[in-house]
């Protein structure tokens, strides 16, 4: 099938990665904690890819990405807990559903707010993000399972390396084909100049909505994996700071650069979690000195993202 054939290289790389990780996991060279972090990095890459579609490719500044990530997480947590789902095969439809629900909410929110531009859009998405956070905080008033500000506990652990990596690879391939097609080209045109894009006949409202919906879907899938990886959710995991994490990853990786986003996610998660291991516990808070300094250095070294030496 052409779908796989034209991404042969990428599939081979992913397969080698899979084998290496699998050996590390099974042989016990990677502790369960490290295993979790590796899966977490892939999940973050998945959600960041969504934001890269919205912001990096289409230029729609969103500060509410964590909200869609959270919607996916809570949806998956609720469904898997209520229906007692514990194996991968019954989990896949749940995962798709989480993506679709996040995408649908993104779609409905996108209709009014994507009419706004730049800073105004940022404020609107920030508002939505806060709204969702407040909703999670008070979710125990709807049903006690959701846990409200105490957090959602007892979520089945389903996420594993096989599933995460396969879904991730699949989504990266799909995304690459979308970017290569006319839709990706339209998104980039809109980012460059919306009025000019309109003048050549691009339905900018629809295209922005499509990018936003797709980006939110990816966030939803990432969130679902996250919920079933850590088996505990707390509303504070889905606030503005998390949205900014995604934004940082997209910017470090390079706007409109898929490979860059993947590397940036690994670097980002690797540093935050890695420093937790490396630094002695007394100076653990130094992380938040080291990481910003690192960010500043990266931005000075490669202002257009780690993958781009010079702007074209």
């Amino acid at each position, binding site marked *: 099938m052409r*779908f796989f054939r034209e991404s042969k290289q990428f599939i081979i790389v992913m397969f080698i990665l899979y084998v290496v990780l699998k050996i590390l996991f099974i042989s016990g060279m990677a502790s369960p904690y490290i295993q979790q972090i590796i899966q977490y990095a892939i999940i973050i890459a998945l959600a960041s890819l969504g934001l890269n579609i919205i912001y990096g490719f289409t230029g729609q500044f969103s500060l509410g990405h964590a909200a869609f990530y959270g919607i996916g997480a809570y949806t998956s947590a609720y469904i898997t807990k209520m229906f007692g789902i514990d194996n991968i095969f019954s989990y896949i439809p749940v995962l798709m559903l989480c993506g679709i629900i996040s995408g649908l909410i993104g779609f409905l929110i996108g209709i009014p707010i994507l009419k706004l531009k730049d800073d105004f859009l940022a404020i609107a998405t920030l508002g939505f993000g806060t709204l969702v956070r407040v909703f999670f905080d008070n979710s125990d008033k709807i049903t006690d399972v959701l846990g409200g500000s105490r957090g959602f506990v007892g979520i089945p652990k389903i996420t594993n390396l096989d599933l995460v990596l396969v879904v991730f690879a699949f989504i990266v391939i799909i995304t690459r084909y979308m970017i290569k*097609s*006319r839709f990706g*080209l*339209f998104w980039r045109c809109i980012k460059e100049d919306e009025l000019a894009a309109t003048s*050549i006949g691009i339905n900018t409202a629809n295209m922005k909505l499509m990018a936003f919906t797709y980006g939110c879907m990816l966030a939803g899938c990432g969130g679902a994996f996250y919920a079933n990886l850590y088996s505990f959710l707390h509303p504070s995991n889905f606030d503005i700071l998390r949205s900014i994490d995604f934004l940082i990853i997209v910017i470090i990786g390079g706007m409109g650069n898929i490979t860059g986003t993947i590397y940036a996610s690994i670097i980002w998660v690797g540093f935050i979690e890695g420093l937790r291991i490396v630094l002695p516990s007394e100076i653990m808070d130094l992380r938040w000195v080291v990481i910003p300094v690192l960010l500043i250095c990266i931005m000075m070294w490669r202002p257009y993202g780690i993958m781009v030496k010079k702007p*074209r």
Partner: protein
Amino acid sequence: MKILEVMELEKNFGGIKAVDNISFFIEEGEVFGIIGPNGAGKTTLFNLISGIYTPDKGKIFFKGKDITDIPPYMLPHFGISRTFQNMRLFGSLTVLENILPAIMVKNSYNIFQAIFRTGSYLDMEKDAYNRACELIEFFGLTEKMEYSASSLSYGEQRRLELARALATEPTLILIDEPGAGMNPKEIWDLALMIKAIKEKFSLTIAIIEHQMNLIMNISDRIMVMDFGEEIMTGTPQEVKKDKRVIEAYLGEELD
């Protein structure tokens, strides 16, 4: 046949009448020039026709169809295309990527065909690529095909914008001040270029321009505007002789 007909068009910006009761028509196959001092409302008129502004009053008909309230992105699908006074290229996209989307808006493949890379998708991509190459070659940009649009020289950017506007296969093209910032030699080339594209693509052209030698040379009829109003419409010869035009625009001769 009247390809475009504008009736009693009016647009106000907070009490200022940018376009005041303008009526005109454009015949199929002609070059219709619009001149007037700065702030006369020429570009506003283009923005009204291309749907970026909605008029406060009046109607616009294209090939007999009312297009007054059509959203701007639909106009290229009807066959109206435009360029901008201050060139709006997709700066960091390559020359090819500037042209391709304009061709592919009319492609019919959907997202699933794109993801699964069906045969028809690849055919349509190939067609679009070939057409883009033809256009790029016609405008003499083949060597620059993989360069980003912002790295081109001013003249090349002007040509690229024209190429992009033509990629949507228009029957009517609105050209807004193509000669701004060009020297006499470049203006001359531009005049030849406009004549050439008119023949090759069998276009009707509406053009705003300040360069008198250019507009007098290529236009079949010229409308003169001032303060949002039409002063007169006529052939270049008539316009040159008209007293009101001379007062408003061309300037009086010293004696």
